[in-house]
């Protein structure tokens, strides 16, 4: 099945960011077709050179392994990037920047949507 994960958690505020990413990776491991859409504070998960001082597992490193899980459709919201004044050059991944129309189409194109 085609799964879309809408990821809105900032990386180190709570463990929900990691647990939702674990779910996305597990889905790929269980042979689902996985797409990711980073929105709201989830954008911060995509930043380069994260040095988590709080003893938490580095999310940037986890995201680097997405290809290994065959997760190649990674989107982020154009509006959310702009709101946070973040440029794609600050991101650690090659993401597809999506406007609201693209996001709407994406949501309708998959079988199952999970939003965290």
């Amino acid at each position, binding site marked *: 099945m085609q799964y879309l994960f809408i990821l809105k958690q900032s990386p180190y505020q709570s463990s929900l960011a990691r647990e939702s990413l*674990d779910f996305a990776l*597990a889905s790929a491991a*269980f042979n689902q077709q996985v797409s990711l859409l980073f929105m709201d504070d989830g954008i911060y998960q995509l930043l380069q050179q994260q040095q988590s001082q709080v003893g938490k597992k580095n999310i940037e490193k986890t995201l680097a392994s997405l290809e290994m899980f065959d997760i190649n459709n990674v989107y982020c919201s154009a509006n959310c990037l702009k709101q946070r004044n973040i440029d794609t050059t600050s991101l650690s991944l090659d993401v597809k920047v999506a406007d609201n129309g693209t996001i709407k189409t994406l*949501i309708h194109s998959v079988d199952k949507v999970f939003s*965290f």
Partner: protein
Amino acid sequence: MTTLTSKAVNHSVAIMLLHSPYTNNINDSALRYTKTLIEQGHSVYRLFFYHEAVQLASNLTITAQDEQQVAKAWQDLIQQHNIDAVACISSSLKRGIIDKQEAKRYDKASYNLAANIQLGGLGDWIEAVNSADTHITFG
């Protein structure tokens, strides 16, 4: 995307809970939803506790008489309707919700997983999502 129509015959729903009772009141909505779902003749395909919601799977909670017994309300519902209830093992273990087997494996003094709830994995949730008519996540 699949949606339930109001004229549907028995639909099965996979339900995921994310939050613990005292950090978020969304479980109140989830409980009302689940009870209504069953009353309307639909079924819970599986109830999956993830992230902080695994706290609901403890059999050690003690609540004052005049306070809402959230974990008990869920456990009673599971018991009453024979709901297939699974707590994610990785979320559970790190939060101190363990069963007899894990207590033995990790040499812990005791265990506290409620009866009628099993420890399981995300594979159980994925199977539920793919098999049920629809899914819903609270939180």
